[in-house]
């Protein structure tokens, strides 16, 4: 026997950390779980964002409808131009219709259309107001039309105007019958002229600033003074009174009358004129109390003078055009005839405000408004403001007559569209007038609206359907992927141990995800088989070694049996001790390998028992078998009940104590502690001694991992592995860490309650 074999131990230095060499080294990835989750859009969000791309479809639809609309409007414009051209050629060469002499003038406030009475002969200016009234025809109420500027205290009894206008070959006549409770005359001491009851006359010729004339009286009866005025109506341009217009003032019982005669030459061929009647009631302050005007918009805007030619009107009557307004103008920009209205038939202006509605109605009305705004529904109300667009007529006419050619334009006002076409009327080489046709473009807009609303409904249904379909699909997909991820993660622990060798759900699906699930499942199965093979390996190895060991053991027995003198032989005993150590190794290998199966078989033996009682009993036993060590039993006085197999928990405690005894400092105390927390019961074994080696702290519970380098004892590192297996079988977790208060290690098993 060589000297090397006589020593039962090999020097530890020859095996630098043999345990690490023994175990296939791998780094546990505690942060693996965390690295899987990255901030990013989820599949469902991505797909839903993709749905938003569908919104380009309505945008395209809207665009094409808009294109169609402008195409239709263009067609309508051309049609209007053609019509205007037709009318113009019909009227070409008819200077007779456009003579200034044949016309019938009208004073036109925009909402006020008095037609002057045609008089056969001049009206005697000296005749009384009553006579005038008889000759000019019935007096029109001034108060019911036009605009007012007055205080809130105004009452019709206090100020009321009726009037009539007439025209003869030479003169334009106007009669104002004014009801006024307090008549204030001009105060000659005052320089400013806006301090008395008065009549204002505004004349506007095309392209010129308006001329303003003030008519006022100093006494009860007699001629009125007339001044040309500054735009502020306060100071006269010249101090001289004008005499070209004859005006007579007469105080009546209820107020006063004013008779005005204006030579036609003074008005001019294309001028527009309108009147304002001013009422001052306070003798002292002499402030203007009320203004009544023929213009609905006050003095800023001037009404028009129509010079109607009845024959012309007769001529164009058959040219009726739907929702169109045809006007014939002479070259002085006076309307000679007009036909039709721009408003569609049966049009009624909408009520200005909505009466009290139920809240629900209001909400639905609001929704409709939003919808209308989105779709640009031609609001019929806006046709009212079309009237305001009349101001735009003149530049168009001017353009047309100056250029001598057809001009057309599309006007927008809010949601309303108006197409206007002007065509000059020729007589020989001269332009004698112009035709203006205005037609509402709302018919096209209505078609557009109908198309759009059908489109919107269609699109909304398709969009909703697709959104729901993709949403459901995406949710399902996300759910399946999440489920697969969860099950895959649950199949292994963070330190790479396999807990489950299959994927339960989603393996029957026929799509790629199903294939992936099946691949992962079969991968886990292969891994599981390999793991089981590895787990079985120690057992198989032990079994194979037991037979030759038995040969050695029984041969030694037989040797002893045959040769009684060898009973206490040193070498025989040494061989027996070697066999004993080998058996110990094999037994612990077998125990660990069979543990899982054994635990499963014992599941029926599980019961609810008091951990405190078990620990107390066990610690007494440890104290008996290890008299050199002090065992401190830190347990609560109340019972701590857990569910499991008491024998196995005792086995777990045995292993923990073995570990503590082995690695603890000689003669140091070992503390066994039971701690009851709200949800868990902790069983800890604490020993003095060296700390856990850093490189092992994650792996002490893995099989065949041990920090021991003492070759005299077998340390397969299976003790803590058995602890973990038993703990996990009982749904408990087990952790090992360095003691906080002193050098040493604390192993804690946390059982669920």
């Amino acid at each position, binding site marked *: 026997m060589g000297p090397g074999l006589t020593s039962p131990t090999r020097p530890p230095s020859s095996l630098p950390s043999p345990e690490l060499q023994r175990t296939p080294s791998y780094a546990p990835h505690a942060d693996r779980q965390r690295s899987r989750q990255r901030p990013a859009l989820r599949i469902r969000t991505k797909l839903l964002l993709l749905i938003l791309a569908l919104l380009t479809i309505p945008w395209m639809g809207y665009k094409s409808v808009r294109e169609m609309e402008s195409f239709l409007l263009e067609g309508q414009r051309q049609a209007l131009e053609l019509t205007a051209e037709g009318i113009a050629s019909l009227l070409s060469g008819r200077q007779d219709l456009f003579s200034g002499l044949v016309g019938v003038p009208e004073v036109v406030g925009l909402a006020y259309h008095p037609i002057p009475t045609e008089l056969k002969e001049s009206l005697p200016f000296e005749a009384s107001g009553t006579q005038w009234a008889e000759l000019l025809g019935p007096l029109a109420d001034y108060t019911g039309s036009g605009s007012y500027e007055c205080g809130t205290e105004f009452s019709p009894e206090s100020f009321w105007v009726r009037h009539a206008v007439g025209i003869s070959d030479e003169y334009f006549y106007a009669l104002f019958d004014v009801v006024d409770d307090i008549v204030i005359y001009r105060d000659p001491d005052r320089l400013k002229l806006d301090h008395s009851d008065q009549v204002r006359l505004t004349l506007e010729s095309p392209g010129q600033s308006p001329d303003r004339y003030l008519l006022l009286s100093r006494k009860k009866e007699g001629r009125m003074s007339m001044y040309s005025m500054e735009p502020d109506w306060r100071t006269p341009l010249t101090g001289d009174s004008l005499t070209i217009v004859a005006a007579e003032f007469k105080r009546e019982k209820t107020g006063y009358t004013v008779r005005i005669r204006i030579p036609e030459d003074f008005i001019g061929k294309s001028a527009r004129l309108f009147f304002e009647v001013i009422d001052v009631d306070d003798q002292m302050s002499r402030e203007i109390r009320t203004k009544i005007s023929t213009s609905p918009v006050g003095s800023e805007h001037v009404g028009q003078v129509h010079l109607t030619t009845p024959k012309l009107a007769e001529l164009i009557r058959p040219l009726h055009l739907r929702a169109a307004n045809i006007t014939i103008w002479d070259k002085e920009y006076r309307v000679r005839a007009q036909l039709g209205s721009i408003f569609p038939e049966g049009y009624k202006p909408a009520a200005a405000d909505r009466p009290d509605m139920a809240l629900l109605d209001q909400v639905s009305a609001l929704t409709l408004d939003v919808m209308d705004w989105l779709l640009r529904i031609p609001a019929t109300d806006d046709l009212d403001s079309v009237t305001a667009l009349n101001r735009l007529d003149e530049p168009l006419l001017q353009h047309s007559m100056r250029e001598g050619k057809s001009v057309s334009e599309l006007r927008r006002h809010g949601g309303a569209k108006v197409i206007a076409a002007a065509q000059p009327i020729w007589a020989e080489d001269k332009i004698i007038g112009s035709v203006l046709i205005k037609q509402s473009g709302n018919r096209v807009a209505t078609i557009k609206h109908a198309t759009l609303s059908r489109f919107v409904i269609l699109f909304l249904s398709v969009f909703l359907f697709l959104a729901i379909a993709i949403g459901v699909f995406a949710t399902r997909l996300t759910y399946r992927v999440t489920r697969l991820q969860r099950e895959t993660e649950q199949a292994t622990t963070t330190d790479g141990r396999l807990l489950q060798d299959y994927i339960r759900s989603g393996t029957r699906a026929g799509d790629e995800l199903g294939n992936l699930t099946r691949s992962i499942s079969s991968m886990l199965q292969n891994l599981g088989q390999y793991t089981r093979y590895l787990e079985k390996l120690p057992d198989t190895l032990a079994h194979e070694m037991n*037979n030759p060991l*038995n040969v050695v053991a029984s041969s030694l*027995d037989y040797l002893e*049996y045959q040769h009684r003198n060898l009973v206490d032989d040193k070498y025989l005993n040494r061989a027996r001790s070697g066999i004993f150590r080998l058996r110990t190794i094999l037994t612990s290998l077998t*125990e660990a390998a069979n543990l899982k*199966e054994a635990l499963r078989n014992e599941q029926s033996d599980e019961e609810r028992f008091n951990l405190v009682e078990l620990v107390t009993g066990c610690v007494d*036993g440890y104290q008996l078998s290890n008299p050199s060590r002090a065992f401190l039993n830190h347990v609560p006085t109340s019972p701590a009940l857990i569910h499991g197999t008491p024998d196995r928990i*005792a*086995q777990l405690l045995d292993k923990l104590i073995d570990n503590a005894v082995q690695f603890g400092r000689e003669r140091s105390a070992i503390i066994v502690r039971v701690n009851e927390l709200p949800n868990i019961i902790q069983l800890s074994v604490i020993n003095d001694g060296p700390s856990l080696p850093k490189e092992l702290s994650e792996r002490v519970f893995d099989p065949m991992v041990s920090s021991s380098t003492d070759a005299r004892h077998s340390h397969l590192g299976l003790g803590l592995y058995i602890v973990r297996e038993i703990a996990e079988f009982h749904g408990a977790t087990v952790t090992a860490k360095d003691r906080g208060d002193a050098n040493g290690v604390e192993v804690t098993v946390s059982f669920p309650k």
Partner: protein
Amino acid sequence: MATTIAVVEDDADQRDTYVDVLMANGYAVNAYADKSSAQLAFRTTLPDLAILDIMLGQDMDGGFDLCMELRNQSQTVPVIFITARDSDVDRISSQRMMAWDYITKPVSLEFLVARVHALLSIATHLQSPELNATVLTINELEIDENSMSIRWQGQRLNFTLTEFQIVESLARRPGHVKTYDALIDVTRQGLVEKNTINGYIRRIRSKFREIDTGFNHIQTVHGTGYKWAQD
């Protein structure tokens, strides 16, 4: 005629050792290396006792098959399994086949001889029961030490030799704790883990409970051992 013992073991070294030691103790020994030769021999002559290895060459359960065959021919011939397989599954299988004992390798020859003696004596008692049998009675437990049989509430329990010895040692001193070390000595096997004792106790309890579901006389003293609790 000498008592005949059949040894079926595929490992020649082990087989020869068993044969040598048994022959030295005065038994006639027939040794077989495989299942088929043993089967052939058992059809003509039954041994008085059979020692079987479970794994015979490539045949993983050859020993079990042989045991079944022996049981078909005789309900009483004692069978001892000596095997390297140390698992509960195999232990339970052996019990189902009414094997009398299950010994894991490596086995002490002294222990083996003692077992063979004991089992043969039980077999003899079973064949010719003595009228003045020594029966120990504790509560409803009757222990017949000659036939090594145990009755609970009058019904016979089917225990292996080791199980019988454990129950007997517990019941002999009711109320006294038998430590794990004491129980390991009782089993007379060289190296036994505490958990192996736990396994024996578990199987013993379940056998009692097959007869009496409320059986609770064998009590655990955590960390120390077990005791027989008297009423």
